[in-house]
């Protein structure tokens, strides 16, 4: 197997023994990018020279006995995280010329760990989307079938991992944007508990929901990545000061002692029969691994999408007010009146979906509608949080599908935003409650598209998720399953 196809943990051994260098590894990944990127279109900005320089530095670091768990490992980064001196677009024309003067905390942590940052990968504009079809720089393709979407909004991250155009990646998840593309691309993606990972330097979409997390080739790699980026950050006032466990130590081949809840509302009408079958097979394997299953009810699940599509756009309308064409980003220089300059710069710089959500959010927050929409949605959010609290008094984990169906064809839903919003129905409530959630591959559809299984746990219980996901992965034997490109 070529170096670019290996996992972080396999490469750690090869790098530690001196069998390979980070320079060799990085060249292998760059060659792979040259070979498949014209088909996949995962990258917005590739920093070839920077990556090779970082790899050489990592090799020196390693020789000195320095560097962390990711020393010399080439990674891609969703283009929503600030990278000092490296263009950061958020998938938007409005930020096309933006060169951040600082690193996001998670990027700084990766650099301090010795990781090699290859470049910035595709995303739905400002992380708004479920298919990565709203990117100003083109749609990345699903490596398993290039006619299909790879999911969004961290679609570039998922595609780059699945296509071996990096060893692992960072994404962000506001309503399912790590888990959903991970599911569609047959890889592992985890959205950690809100507050576990710093949001400093993450270009904000909906601040009370956004969370950064890894996308990786297998469960162990996801645990290594999450360990590297977790922890308190005084620069993020919503960061939680709590000790970070060793997630890799939680990986065990069984689920003995874990009670696994099956939320009945997640297996309702509209679920693709092949997804239903694959997830139920996964549940049977978790039982075989020693997990005890119980049926759980989360009665307000069906209201999650409606609450989310008020709360997230409301926060977005506020967060995106900063893009005014004055301090950074695109500006329409033809306007000689300030308000017109704002309006024309924003209208030309933002794409259709972003404008749609800003308008929804502004409407929901406007005078006379606040109580009917935003307050109501925030109250329903409380009911969803209470559903979970009750569920986790009865079980350790919740198991469900990630998406109602495998990845759809590119363009199939482009004019029907509501139908796209409903594809997030199984992931959105996790964000409203701030819980950790993972997508782990559990099967393939008859048309050859991956299917993911979702694991959710109570706040800061990522270790339970890793344990069950690892036990499942060991029994399924899907790790190492690769698309033909």
């Amino acid at each position, binding site marked *: 197997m070529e170096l670019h196809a290996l996992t972080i943990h396999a490469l750690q051994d090869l790098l530690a023994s001196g069998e390979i260098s980070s320079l060799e590894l990085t060249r292998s990944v760059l060659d792979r990018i040259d070979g498949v990127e014209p088909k996949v279109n995962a990258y917005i900005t590739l920093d070839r020279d920077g990556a090779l320089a970082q790899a050489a530095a990592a090799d020196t670091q390693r020789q000195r006995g320095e560097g962390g768990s990711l020393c010399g490992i080439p990674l891609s980064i969703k283009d929503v995280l600030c990278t000092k001196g490296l263009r950061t677009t958020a998938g938007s024309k409005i930020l096309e010329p933006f*060169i951040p003067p600082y690193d996001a905390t998670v990027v700084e942590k990766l650099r301090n760990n010795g990781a090699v940052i290859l470049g910035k990968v595709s995303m739905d504009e400002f992380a708004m989307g479920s298919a990565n079809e709203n990117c100003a720089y083109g749609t990345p393709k699903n490596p398993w079938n290039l006619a299909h979407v790879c999911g969004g909004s961290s679609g570039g991250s998922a595609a780059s991992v699945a296509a071996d155009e990096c060893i692992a990646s960072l994404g962000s998840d506001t309503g399912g944007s790590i888990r959903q593309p991970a599911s569609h691309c047959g890889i592992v993606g985890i959205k950690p508990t809100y507050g576990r990972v710093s949001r400093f330097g993450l270009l904000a979409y909906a601040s009370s929901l956004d969370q950064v997390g890894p996308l990786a080739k297998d469960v162990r790699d996801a645990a290594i990545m999450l360990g590297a980026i977790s922890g308190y950050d005084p620069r993020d006032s919503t960061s939680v000061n709590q000790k970070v466990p060793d997630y890799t130590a939680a990986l065990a081949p069984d689920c003995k002692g874990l009670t696994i809840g099956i939320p009945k509302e997640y297996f309702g009408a509209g679920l693709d029969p092949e997804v239903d079958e694959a997830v139920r097979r996964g549940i049977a394997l978790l039982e075989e691994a020693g997990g005890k299953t119980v049926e759980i009810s989360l009665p307000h699940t069906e*209201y999650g999408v409606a609450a989310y599509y008020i709360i997230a756009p409301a926060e977005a309308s506020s967060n995106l007010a900063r893009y005014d064409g004055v301090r950074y980003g695109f500006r329409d220089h033809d306007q000689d009146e*300030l308000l017109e300059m704002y309006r024309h710069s924003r209208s030309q710089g933002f794409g259709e979906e972003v404008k749609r959500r800003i308008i*929804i959010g502004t409407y929901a927050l406007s005078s006379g509608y606040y109580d009917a929409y935003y307050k109501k949605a925030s109250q329903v*959010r409380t009911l969803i949080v209470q559903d979970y609290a009750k569920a986790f008094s009865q079980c350790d984990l919740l198991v469900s599908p990630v998406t109602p169906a495998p990845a759809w064809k590119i363009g199939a839903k482009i004019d029907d935003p509501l139908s796209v919003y409903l594809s997030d129905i199984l992931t959105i409530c996790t964000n409203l409650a701030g819980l950790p959630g993972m997508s782990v591959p559990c099967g393939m559809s008859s048309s050859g598209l991956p299917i993911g299984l979702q694991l959710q746990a109570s706040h800061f219980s990522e270790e339970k998720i890793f344990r069950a996901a690892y036990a499942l992965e060991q029994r399924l034997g899907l790790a190492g399953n690769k698309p033909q490109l």
Partner: protein
Amino acid sequence: MKITPEEVRYVAKLARLSLSEAEVEKTTLQLDGILSYVEKLGELDTTSVQPTTHALAIHNAFRADETRESLPQQEALANGPLQNGEAFVVPKVI
């Protein structure tokens, strides 16, 4: 509730967005569909339910009120689409 093109134009103005007539028409239809779906929330009685604004029990995080180092002026200005080396330049307001 039926959304009108006038409401879309008004909200777009509040949001500092300029929409073409075709965009107003399309947005009106789509917003109407989305908000009709959101009406679903009205099925629930939330009279005695406190709203959640934050997923965790985190309260305001205060920092000491002290001067700290900031970005150098040139770095802070570097991404400005129009600047004069000392400040961002905008169309005359007064």
